[in-house]
């Protein structure tokens, strides 16, 4: 296993501190209940270590994050701005995970999806870390999945 759940939470907390104000607290796995639409964002790491870093949160939390980032009211935000904000969080957390992995590795650009509660996975990977953070009153799920051939 590349990192512990605690490591993943620490990376997420560090990224959160650099992008926004407010609390980022560890929550229990059963707290992952998203209200309404869900937004998920992925980055893949390829090279000597291969895997996927993903985050998932409600559309409402995505809007809160983007609203704070762009200093705009939620009603003024475009979908593109919301996906850009969530994608960059995944990108930065991915950068933190990549920093732990040994060897030469490359991070892909983020992919963002939105919809009702949905399965979003990269076939051939196994989820090794799963952490729930509470941001305000909303949960954010952080996960690291390893490509099976790289799992240990």
């Amino acid at each position: 296993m590349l990192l512990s759940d605690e490591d993943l939470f620490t990376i997420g907390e560090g990224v959160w501190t650099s992008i926004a104000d407010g609390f980022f607290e560890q929550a229990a796995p059963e707290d992952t209940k998203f209200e309404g639409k869900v937004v998920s964002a992925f980055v893949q790491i390829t090279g000597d270590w291969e895997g996927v870093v993903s985050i998932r949160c409600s559309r409402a939390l995505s809007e809160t994050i983007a609203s704070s980032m762009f200093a705009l009211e939620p009603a003024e935000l475009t979908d593109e701005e919301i996906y850009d904000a969530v994608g960059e969080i995944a990108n930065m957390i991915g950068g933190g995970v990549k920093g732990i992995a040994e060897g030469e590795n490359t991070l892909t650009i983020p992919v963002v999806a939105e919809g009702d509660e949905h399965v979003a996975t990269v076939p051939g990977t196994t989820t090794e870390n799963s952490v729930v953070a509470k941001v305000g009153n909303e949960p954010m799920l952080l996960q690291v999945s390893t490509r099976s051939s790289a799992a240990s």
Partner: protein
Amino acid sequence: MKILVADDSKAMRMIVIRNLKSAGFSDATFSEAENGKQGLDSVKADKPDLILSDWNMPEMNGLEFCQAVTAEGIDVTFGFVTSESTADMRSLAEEAGAKFLIAKPFTPQAFQEAISLAVGS
């Protein structure tokens, strides 16, 4: 101090500016560019003291942007803020004239230290 932030992600430009303000550059005047080509036009028009650029951008990437700024003989401190930070990239960045490369995720301290060293050198 005039600072140009070039990144094709508006979110990342906002994040970089937020971190720069936390790093003690809250009095700076910030301008933004979505790619290297737009950045080069902005450099010629606004003459910033510092450029912080992403590496991967459409139209003109960060390395080409840095090379163009150096080729034009423009006196400005150029640094990269990027997810990728391999030894090869650091070497290419240095050859192109960049003074530093900050890897994501970053902290305000990372900006403070890199810029202090670059401006002081």
